[in-house]
């Protein structure tokens, strides 16, 4: 008896995958099942072939698997691009089509019913959920949908009891009251916790979700939300907003971020905080707009001309996405530097249930000061941090200048001062280093083989290792990829072999570690076809590399 199920919905864009996914995952969660879902889709609005993978389990889940237990084609059968994932054990479920044969529009809800039945979800939850979901459409629609779902449910129960699925997933009552959020929402919520009250952005997949989330909550949470004419405007607005005392963020992806780099450099020079939520997708250029990749670490790391410090967070889970996004605002404000939240399509489009999100007791700390009459924005201090004032708060004047400047913020050509200002700015990197987050070690401290990962691969690597069940392999995950904490070297030195796992073609994080620690990481497991690793793929590739 399996206590976990992998369901895949597939079909053309616009065929209603979204509805099935939304309703099914909520109904399952409300019935007490742990749910994980993620999607892959083409860069088009109708047609093509997309899919959503939903895992249902008695245990918490946070990783993508290749395995398909039940495949549900919606609309015209479009399973071709999933061929590699379909095995003899894959059950292609089409029974719902029979149910809605008179009225095709109920096909999708019938499928929800069948799947709910197969799993044994709470029938009342299903029916209640549907009445909420369709409430705007009137009683008749609700009723018809409930009818279709009900029929599907019966059929599902029958299928299950026929024993073909050999399935027993015990619900966990605690889950019912949990929340379910996506990576995009997690970043947005973290930003709100960090005090974000200004968002300027230009739409770009896969970053638009975070922007949309904040725009939707602009009225409720009193956020200034504005779609800029281009990414250049977006970043320059965000910097202006921070300068004036707001807490601003931009959301973008690689190509859009390219255009923001001069602004990044400006933030570096002005020592104005700024937060960039950078959602990665495969490049170069337009690349694969709706796919995933970890190809822009180097970009974030070295972007913007000239030399100035920055911090880069790369969440590996929704929990981390919330916490690191919150922290990004604090770090940016405290050190007056640009800070990245580096995510990718896989992370922002994945969602699962979480116990809840704790709101910190302390409100976000504001680091700026009320200025006195003789205020000097760039006062030289020991550690390089000058108290930051904002215009209109206090008696002082606040001058920020993109040229090399003096302590007052006025343009200068004093080259000795230049030297001191370079050192002032660069010194903040040391401060950032001191506060850098520790990597998370999973497994023994001095195992023979150490796997190094960063960002969104966290859950997948973790599950792969637990599937492998080997105690000679540990996993070190970096939620902050720059600067690295001092401890990094120690961790790596203890291992006989280090294997980097990254969703890009060069192993950019491995290269960064090599550069910062001098430790060579020649063993790399890389992927760059636009899809995330799957647990199974990692199991086999780690086996291959690590040997028996």
């Amino acid at each position, binding site marked *: 008896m399996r206590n976990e199920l992998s369901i895949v919905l597939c079909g053309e864009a616009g065929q209603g995958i979204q509805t099935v996914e939304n309703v099914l995952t909520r109904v399952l969660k409300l019935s007490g099942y742990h749910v994980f879902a993620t999607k892959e889709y083409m860069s088009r609005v109708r047609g093509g072939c997309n899919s959503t993978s939903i895992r249902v389990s008695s245990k918490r889940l946070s990783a993508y698997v290749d395995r398909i237990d039940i495949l549900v084609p919606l609309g015209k059968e479009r399973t071709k691009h999933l061929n590699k994932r379909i095995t003899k054990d894959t059950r292609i479920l089409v029974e719902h089509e029979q149910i809605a044969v008179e009225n095709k529009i109920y096909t999708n809800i019938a499928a929800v019913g069948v799947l709910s039945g197969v799993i044994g979800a709470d029938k009342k939850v299903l029916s209640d959920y549907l009445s909420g979901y369709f409430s705007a459409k009137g009683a008749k629609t609700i009723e018809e949908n409930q009818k279709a779902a009900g029929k599907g449910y019966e059929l599902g129960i029958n299928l299950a009891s026929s024993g073909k699925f050999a399935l027993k997933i015990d619900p966990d009552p605690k889950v019912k009251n949990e929340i379910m959020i996506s990576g995009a929402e997690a970043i947005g919520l973290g930003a709100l916790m960090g*005090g974000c009250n200004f968002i300027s952005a230009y739409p770009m997949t896969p970053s638009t979700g975070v922007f949309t989330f904040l725009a939707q909550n602009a009225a409720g949470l009193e956020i200034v939300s504005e779609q800029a004419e281009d990414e250049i405007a977006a970043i*320059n607005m*965000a910097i*202006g907003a921070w300068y004036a*005392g*707001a807490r601003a963020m931009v959301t973008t992806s690689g190509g859009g971020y390219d255009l923001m780099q001069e602004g990044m450099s*400006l933030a570096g020079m002005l020592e104005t905080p700024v937060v960039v939520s950078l959602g990665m997708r495969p490049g170069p250029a337009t690349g694969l707009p709706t796919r995933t990749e970890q190809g822009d670490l180097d970009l974030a790391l070295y972007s913007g001309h000239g030399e100035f410090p920055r911090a880069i967070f790369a969440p590996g889970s929704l929990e981390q996405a919330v916490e690191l996004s919150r922290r990004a605002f604090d770090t940016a404000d405290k050190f007056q530097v640009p800070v990245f939240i580096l995510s990718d399509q896989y992370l922002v489009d994945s969602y699962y249930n979480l116990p809840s999100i704790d709101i910190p007791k302390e409100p976000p700390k504001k680091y700026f000061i009320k200025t006195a009459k003789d205020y000097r924005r760039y006062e030289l201090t020991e550690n390089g941090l000058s108290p930051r004032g904002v215009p*209109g708060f206090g008696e002082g004047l606040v*001058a*920020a200048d993109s040229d090399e400047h003096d302590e007052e913020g006025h343009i200068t050509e004093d080259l000795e001062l230049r030297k001191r200002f370079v050192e002032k700015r660069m010194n903040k990197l040391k401060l950032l280093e001191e506060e850098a987050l520790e990597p998370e070690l999973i497994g023994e401290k001095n195992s023979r083989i150490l796997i190094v990962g960063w960002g969104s691969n966290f859950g997948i690597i973790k599950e792969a290792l637990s599937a492998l069940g080997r105690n000679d392999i540990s996993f070190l995950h970096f939620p902050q990829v720059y600067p690295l904490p001092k401890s990094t070297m120690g961790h790596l030195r203890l291992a006989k072999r280090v294997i980097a796992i990254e969703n890009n073609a060069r192993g950019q994080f491995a290269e960064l570690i090599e550069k910062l620690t001098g430790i060579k990481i020649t063993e790399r497991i890389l992927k760059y076809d636009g899809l995330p690793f799957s647990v199974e793929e990692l199991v086999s590739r780690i086996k291959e590399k690590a040997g028996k």
Partner: protein
Amino acid sequence: MNAEIKAFDMGPIDIAWCPGCGNFGILNVLKEAVAELNLAPENLMMVSGIGQAAKEPHYLKCNVFNGLHGRAVPPATAIKAANPGLTVIVDSGDGDMYGEGGNHFIHAIRRNPDITVIVHNNMVYGLTKGQASPTSRIGFKTPIQVEGVFEEPFNPLSVAIALDAPFVARAFAGDPEKTKEILKKAIQHRGFSLVDIFQPCVSFNKINTYQWFKDNTYYLEDAHDPQERSAAFRRAIEDEKLPLGIFYINEKRTIFEDKLAAYRKNKAPLFDRAVNYDKLSELINSRKR
């Protein structure tokens, strides 16, 4: 009056402009205008890009955001949105605003924040030593435009009117009195106000000199009705002689800050706000279903 102008005076600083440059006139007039409008330096926010004109904010007492070449308008918009209590003036060059910054120029007019945009239009790139700017006139020769400019000069007035900008004016640095009056009206006008100021560059533009501007400009007659958009356009495209004055005013446009949900209930500037934890909890809890 003079006492107030002093409030904006920086004292004995080194001004990096060439002797005789039209920028000095604009700086003086600007100081007078803000003094006469009773603005306080702490409340005055000058934003600029990069260029000779863009150095101006360093030369008067005020809050300064001297950003990137071409990028003065987006931070100005954001600063105003983050703290609507500030008086925000953008002060930049023709290359800055209409060349590198062209996209922000047009979209800021659409967005319509309550900022004043002063453009020192010397028809040349001053700081980079004399290349053509978008407003350089046909035939203007430079080290890059060896055979003379052939591109149609950018007409900021006609474009602004085409975008239905709420306040569109042109002035001449050689006429401080009239320029001051125009500037004061522009600053007082709620919404995006454009003041394009002809500014002789004595070092790199030997064609469009003080004399040339004197000979080739005249003021719109009092009878000109700035509410009349098509008429304003007709005047804006005049090219024999270039009219000065207030071409167009549209009082009906919605203002950016006024539309922001963030200020609907709460009038405090953003720096003075706390996260609404109740709403945030509500939002988080809404994800239970």
